[in-house]
């Protein structure tokens, strides 16, 4: 993953909000519950924004060091990609 990677959810994967459950990541026959930070990261995976831009924006929003946020994004991306939620 480089700064210029533009992560995108795999076909059929989408965020879903429901009054009884809050927001989850839905995929065929699967549901992934994510914490608040992970949800706000995934919400940025639109195939247009670069990882570097996502990290900078979220670092500002959470008043956190950009390198720390970037490490969170990378580890989340790696995990989601291995499970097929992200199309690389």
């Amino acid at each position: 993953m480089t700064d210029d990677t533009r992560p995108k959810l795999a076909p059929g994967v989408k965020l879903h909000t429901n009054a009884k459950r809050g927001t989850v990541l839905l995929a065929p026959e699967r549901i992934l519950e994510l914490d608040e930070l992970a949800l706000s990261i995934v919400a940025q995976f639109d195939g247009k924004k670069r990882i570097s831009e996502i990290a900078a924006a979220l670092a500002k929003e959470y008043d956190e060091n950009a390198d720390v946020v970037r490490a969170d994004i990378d580890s989340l991306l790696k995990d989601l990609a291995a499970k097929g939620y992200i199309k690389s």
Partner: protein
Amino acid sequence: MTDLPVPIGLLAELTHRCPLGCPYCSNPIELTRTNAELDTKTWINVLNEAASLGIMHVHLSGGEPLVRPDLAELTNAAHLAGLYTNLITSAVGLTVQRFSELRAAGLDHVQISIQGVDPARADSVAHFKGGTRAKLDAAKRIVEAGMALTINAVMHRNNMDELPAIIGLAENLGAGRLEVAHVQYHGWAIPNRAALMPTREQFLEAEQIVIEARARFEGTLVIDHVMPDYFAERPKACMGGWGRQVIVVTPDGRALPCHAAATLPGMIFDNVRKKPLADIWGHSEAFNRFRGTQWMPKPCNGCERAEIDWGGCRCQALSILGDATATDPACALSPNHARMKELASASATNTYRFRRIGG
């Protein structure tokens, strides 16, 4: 019963009609006729009620859901209700026109069942000539449109040798997910058990092939392996536990905790024509009958796995032991576990009884 679970999925069996005649169909032997099917308006109401209940996934299934002319309308209603829409289909009848209607209606995902890779062999199991060709054409169309595709390969003694080729096919088609689904012995698979049951060696080899393929395709192809209970030491949680995750609505509107539950004797199923889904989920006798752990006999009662497998499959206990309240014989702790092994190794036959309306 405390803490009523929030259901996750609705299996909407829109019809029992199907052009195929697979001898392992999970539909009941007694198939519902067309004139008893719910109409469009009632299904739309059910879909809205499901979304309000907290359900996220709707599986539009059958029979073959494409035989319903209102499928796109129902898909759109589910989509507008905020449900994740999954079409479970043979893909026979998924023409360019139908697919584009469904896509416009908001369809999220298609699951196509295949009987194998060799067209002659596969079509003979499905009892339908040209089926394999139609399935592959539809699969390509789905992937080209950028939609998520699952290939569901039903495995049994007569196609187990095709498993590596089936995995290769899923990869070549660009499917995101492959279900290697061993036949589950309910519905039409019970009278065909002796013709479908794999040998223990076949099953173990398949397991090895899946493990290797999973490692090879990590991140590109999700492979789910639905095990045959007959070779298991522990039962599966039926539908994620009775009355815990899934509601099945049959073509004529009965709400069931699992698609085979109608085989259980003395069970009264409420109908979505008469009662709201939330009422049925929370209060119906059928959903509460085996919900939780109170009903369990020993050795399930007090077992550390009681809330993992929720007592396994009631329909299997009935079909093998004649008692729906018994411990699932798939469990090695069941006093009747040996019966399961005997059935798995019973002598094979080569004749199928193909599925058809009117049994």
